[in-house]
């Protein structure tokens, strides 16, 4: 079963959540995702997601010269982004609750029979 679509759906919400905590940049977002188990699943998906979020108006960016020299984009969440994140969290809770009930129902049944 292809899990990539499932991951892509969740990633956008996770990235928005990371940005909502404080102003951050690409490498920091990658590190945070890596720390939480999303390492080898990324493969370039971060940048299209950031681009999409910016186009939707969920995040803004400002450009600052990084200590290494290149221009670095710092992202922060907008009001629109806050609303989108809120809506994502609500839907995520609903979906995971329902999915858990279906996916783990058989296991619960086995445990009670045992």
């Amino acid at each position, binding site marked *: 079963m292809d899990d990539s679509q499932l991951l892509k759906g969740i990633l956008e919400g996770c990235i928005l959540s990371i940005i909502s905590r404080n102003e951050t940049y690409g490498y920091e977002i990658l590190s945070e995702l890596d720390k939480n188990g999303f390492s080898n699943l990324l*493969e*370039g998906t971060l940048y299209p997601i950031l681009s999409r979020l910016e186009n939707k108006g969920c995040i803004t960016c400002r450009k600052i010269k990084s200590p290494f*020299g*290149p221009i*670095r984009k710092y992202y922060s969440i907008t009001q629109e982004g806050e609303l989108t994140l809120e809506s994502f969290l609500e839907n995520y809770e609903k979906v995971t609750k329902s999915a858990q009930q279906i996916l783990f129902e058989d296991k619960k049944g086995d445990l009670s029979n045992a």
Partner: protein
Amino acid sequence: MLESYVLYKKKLEGQYLETFDKIELYSITRSLDINTHEELMMDLIDVFLTAQKNGKSVKNIVGNDVGSFCRNFCSGIGLKNQIKGFADSFKRITWLILIFCIIDLFSLFEGVSYFEIQSNIMPILAGGLIGIILSFVFGAIFKTLMFRFKKINMKIYSIGLFICVIIFTGSFIFATNKLSINVFNWEIILASGVYLIAYYILRKVYFQKLMKPQKIRFSDMVIEEIQKSWHKIITNKNKRLLKKGKEPLTSLEFTKSMQKKHRFDEWIVLVGWSIFIAIYLGFGIKVGLESKLFDTVMFMIIVGVVYIPIAFFIRSSTRSIIWQKKTLDICVQEKIDIFTYIENKKIETENNDFVEVAGD
């Protein structure tokens, strides 16, 4: 101050440099708009430099499959960017068509009426079609092979492109000699002119966000290039003087000599513009003496449609020339050499720039 990511590539090492080169090459094969390409690469190089400094493996950033990373990385490019890239390529072809049509206008001096002049568009059509097919096929093949074989790099891509250019040129020459589709010159000029005007208006209105940031001034763009070329001139001049056993020029002496050399620049620009306008009026007078008023007016409008984009192009070049002359005049007046003036300008620009310096 305008900067390219290329300035920072030399800081990358080993696997980071190798991987970055692959991604850069992939981005180039996508024929993106130059600003989009610069922005993508600038984002990536910062991540690579940070990860390199923190001792992380490049696989932590791009994963195990660089090809997959590239496809995902470039998939964020919106339709607007792709349309702009295509429109930019088509603009260049249109300029080429216009130049050929203008050359055909010299038939006017052989007594041919303007509205009877025809141009053979077969070479452009055949060449253009073959060029598009070639670049598509070459790009598709190259993008597949570049991740299968490690040795495929920018050199090989350049050789491949060169071969495509030879095939394109060969088909162009063949089409010129063997085939012809003649169309009225005024129809081609009108269509090309309409496209170019539409392109420049759309670029201003629709692609505004994709353009360079407006806070970067024109003078800042030319500073870097002029500084490099003047450094070269003074270095070569001083080498020659030393060979002859003479004293090398100081920077201030060099500035004064450049100011003398450029003192007639404004006049040259004025004469250039006068000739440019005179040719336009000359065509008008020639056609006016031989044709009815309506034909003359139509002709002037059609040629005017060509002249406006050419005028924009000439204006950009002349702005650089005028800026150089004014800068040299200021330097001589304030008794400061040009290199010190440029360094001061750079510092002033950085201080006023919208780009801040990160604290960490």
